[in-house]
């Protein structure tokens, strides 16, 4: 009867109940529903309850879907790279170059815009990036350019938005992993002759690698699934993958097609999640005595 004795008391599960019910009802169930609907098809605006692969066949065989997918992928990947490129120096400066008193202040200053409504921030970028916007006016006033550069309603604007929206997450994750580095390690490195840049390469970068991966996951997934940013800043001419889903629902009311696209998106995200988080695991645990490699 040892097993029953080790069985946790009932109250142990009570706390899990609300979240379980919530997750099942509003997450698991809809996802399963989408998955199932993606194998149905729509005829004359009505779902036909007959299993089929025709949605997937259509997506995989038509170039615009591929283009949109790759566009999303490229934009999200670029967002990851830029976030890391901006986030590393920023996090480094806050964590190591600024006195502890001002660290919190800077972190808060960085987060505050993050609390502003997403739509408002997106529209604000319109004001800056439009043909007659602040940026173009500024550049013209300086005589850097004669005619306005077209940024708004291209995916350059989308990219600016992505980087601006999600860079904060990357920086916060990098900052927190830098914060947890024992300062003695940096002193030891310096003591053994490493200059600042070398210390960064040899010590700080490897030790913040889990933070970088976690940040990349966040930035990639949020950019990949973002629909508002690309719509408001990138326009609709060259849609990203998430815009296609919305188009299928709003335009042709093709629920099954939209579901199939959504499934592809979810599979992509889960694949990336598994791939990257596994790297974090090996980087953090470093079990088995193998030399840690990047």
């Amino acid at each position, binding site marked *: 009867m040892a097993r029953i004795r080790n069985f946790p008391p009932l109250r142990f599960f009570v706390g899990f109940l609300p979240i379980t019910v919530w997750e099942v009802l509003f997450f698991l169930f809809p996802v399963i529903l989408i998955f199932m609907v993606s194998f149905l098809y729509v005829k004359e605006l009505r779902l036909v309850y007959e299993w089929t692969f025709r949605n997937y066949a259509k997506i995989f065989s038509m170039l615009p879907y591929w283009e949109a997918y790759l566009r999303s992928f490229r934009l999200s990947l670029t967002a990851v790279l830029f976030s890391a490129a901006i986030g590393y120096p920023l996090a480094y400066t806050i964590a190591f170059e600024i006195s502890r008193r001002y660290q919190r202040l800077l972190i808060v200053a960085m987060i505050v815009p993050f609390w502003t409504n997403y739509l408002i921030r997106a529209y604000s970028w319109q004001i800056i990036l439009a043909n007659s916007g602040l940026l173009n006016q500024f550049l013209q006033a300086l005589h850097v350019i004669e005619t306005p550069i077209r940024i708004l309603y291209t995916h350059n604007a989308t990219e600016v938005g992505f980087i601006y929206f999600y860079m904060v997450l990357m920086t916060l994750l990098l900052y927190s992993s830098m914060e947890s580095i024992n300062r*003695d390690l940096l002193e030891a490195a*310096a*003591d*053994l*002759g490493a200059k600042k840049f070398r210390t960064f390469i*040899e010590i700080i970068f*490897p030790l913040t690698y889990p933070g970088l991966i976690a940040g990349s996951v966040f930035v990639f997934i949020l950019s990949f699934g973002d629909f508002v940013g690309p719509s408001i800043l990138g326009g609709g001419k060259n849609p990203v993958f998430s815009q296609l889903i919305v188009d299928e629902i709003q335009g042709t009311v093709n629920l099954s097609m939209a579901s199939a696209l959504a499934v592809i998106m979810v599979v992509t995200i889960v694949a990336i999640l598994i791939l990257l988080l596994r790297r974090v695991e090996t980087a953090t645990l470093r079990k088995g005595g193998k*030399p840690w490699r990047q």
Partner: protein
Amino acid sequence: MPGSSPKGDPGILKGRYSMEDISVEFRNVTKKFGEIVAVDGLSLCVRSGRFLTLLGPSGCGKTTTLRMVGGFEIPSSGDIFLMGEEVTYESIAKRETHMVFQNYALFPHKTVAQNIGFGLKMQGLKKSQIEGRVREMLNLINLPDIYDRMPHQLSGGQQQRVALARALILKPPVLLLDEPLGALDAKIRKQLQLELKQLQKDLGITFLYVTHDQEEAMIMSDIIGIMNSGRLEQLGTPQQIYETPKTEFVAGFVGECNFFEGKVLGSSDGLIEIQDSSGRILKVERHSFDVSSLAGRRATLAVRPEDIEIGETAALCVNRLEGKIREKLYTGVVVRLVVEIEDNRIIVDLRRGISSLPSDRIQIGWNPDVGSVIPKD
């Protein structure tokens, strides 16, 4: 530097010193953190190849002193010299000193070999050269088989040795050690104390060692510097520190000590006479004191517990007192008595063999050849 005279203890610096002889010198170094003075006007010379320990309670400034040698802190005023060259504002990376940290500070993502070879890698040596030197170091610390291990797979003692090897591989003229054994359990600590001491002798490198453990300092050091609230209280060999403490702080910090306060009357037959508040006269050998400058001043006589006799032996002593036994403590090595004399509690350590003790009143005594006079300002 040329022409200047050393400010350390003249006993340590016999005669004129040449620049090669001094590996570390502090000249009137003060370090402030905001309003707090961590190190206060420290002047100190360390001769090459010596094992010098800075000993003191936490917050006494010993670690700050060490860190200033390594370049981890910059003095607020004063100068620091390494091998005759001023390094006060030199960057950490450029200094030839290397540090062994209290918590080892091994790079957790690097193997033992990568840790030990880090300094050589920074100097731009080739992998093959580094490997040979690393294997040499692993043999030196008697751990030849851990080349590919990760730090977290090692015991605390092993990690400490790896940290030592990592600092020693660059052959520093001065090794800085910041309570390197503090985190280890007593048995391994004792063993490593002896190993460290032996290693230091073999290599002939100056060790600048920081600890708050007085026993550790006594066992390992050639020279001990006792620090208290940022000041160097006394510098000397372990024997000098123990037998002739110059301040009450030193006497009380290193080992147990009994204090008798009084006024110096003068000297007779080479003995200093001190009169305590109840009129008793205690006598002590002069050592190096200039008695005429002491006469009339208040002073403390410090006597070690193991130097005090009881019973019949005490009756034959020059200095005799009578008191009540308050406590009898059996410590294994000695039997410790706490004797109350007026409002002074005197500790007496007796060798174990002595079993029959008077139960109440007891006579204690000691001769003038033990004890030291500490003048009060």
